[in-house]
């Protein structure tokens, strides 16, 4: 783990990363911590992975705290953010990364497959951002980065629920950017394509070489390649970027 940017302005900042225990979120936690941020990451189930990440970061001298939080539960989110504030009294960076996939063809969806995805991917973002935004408004500054997906813009079989959730996040990002801009709070989204994580494994295995052929760069992305863009948006180098959806997909969206 090393710094990506020199003098990024992230050192000493306080960051929250939801869904930080695994995959892309885990890498975002590591990158922000390496830049010198005090990072609290929320995780839902995998306590072992969360503790391992916290220990790994601690061993590197980074300031990282793991908190079990169910973003689907608004009260849980409120308590978690209060607990971060109790320690740091500010929140400079919020990365809404928690998300789930429940692919199926539309007529075959169960109610749970629809509601689980919308509750985590959409309502979860409302819950956390709803309690963090007033803090940033008070501070007159902050950066909110939502993790969207190429699915929010590019159609994909079996993903109507996930695509709808990520399309919602894109719209949410633009609307909130307008709302919070007067207080110098930037809101952007990063839309990864097919990234080499546990969460996307099933999609990648099902799609096989067929989908790889449609990625212009001819390979899957890595969590670190997404995390570095998140870090850029959180840094002083991204200070004039607002309301954008940045695609990190090797050209998949265009193919």
């Amino acid at each position, binding site marked *: 783990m090393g710094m990506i940017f020199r003098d990024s302005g992230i050192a000493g900042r306080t960051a929250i990363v939801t869904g930080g225990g695994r995959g892309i979120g885990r890498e975002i936690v590591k990158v922000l911590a390496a830049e010198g941020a005090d990072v609290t990451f929320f995780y839902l189930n995998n306590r072992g992975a969360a503790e391992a990440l916290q220990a790994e970061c601690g061993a590197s001298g980074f300031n990282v705290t793991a908190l079990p939080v169910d973003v689907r539960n608004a009260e849980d989110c409120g308590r978690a953010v209060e607990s971060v504030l109790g320690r740091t009294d500010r929140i400079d960076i919020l990365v809404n990364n928690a998300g789930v996939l429940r692919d199926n063809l539309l007529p075959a969806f169960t109610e749970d497959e629809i509601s689980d995805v919308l509750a985590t991917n959409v309502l979860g973002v409302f819950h956390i951002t709803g309690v963090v935004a*007033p803090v940033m*408004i*008070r501070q007159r500054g902050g950066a909110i980065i939502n993790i969207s997906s190429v699915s929010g813009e590019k159609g994909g079989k079996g993903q109507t629920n996930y695509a709808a959730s990520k399309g919602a996040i894109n719209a949410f990002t633009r609307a909130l950017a307008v709302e919070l801009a*007067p*207080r110098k709070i930037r809101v952007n989204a990063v839309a990864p394509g097919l990234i080499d994580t546990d969460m996307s494994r099933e999609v990648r295995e099902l799609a096989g070489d067929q989908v790889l052929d449609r990625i212009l760069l001819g390979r899957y992305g890595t969590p670190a390649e997404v995390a570095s863009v998140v870090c850029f948006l959180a840094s002083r180098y991204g200070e004039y970027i607002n309301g954008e959806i940045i695609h990190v997909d090797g050209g998949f969206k265009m193919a």
Partner: protein
Amino acid sequence: MNTDTIYPKVREIIADVLAFEESEIQRDGSLVDDYSAESIDFLDLVYQLEREFKIKVPRGMIEQEARRGLSEDFEEHGRLTDKGLEHLKTYLSEVPEDRFTPRMQVSLIPTLFTPETFCKIVLREMEGGEQAASG
């Protein structure tokens, strides 16, 4: 405790949120018309009051309280009825009479808010949210 004891801190927070000098804040001034407060400022103001006074102000509380006991008679097509207007005048008794206009839009109620309005809200919530914030 009364609103006089709360006012200095409320004024300090209002001045900070709206970027005015404390000396420029009048207790019965209109936050919207005199100090250019926008909706995001009200959010900030309530958030800071909540933290300063260790209270929780339910969102939309003022309008809900102003409607209490009137239900649908309060407004008609988004505008205050005569009854609604009288009810609102009683509820926002700290607001000078000439700022209320007949058939005013419900969405414009926040334009009536003054620093004293927020003192009353704070006092009410500090006392357990039981008494009506009517003066």
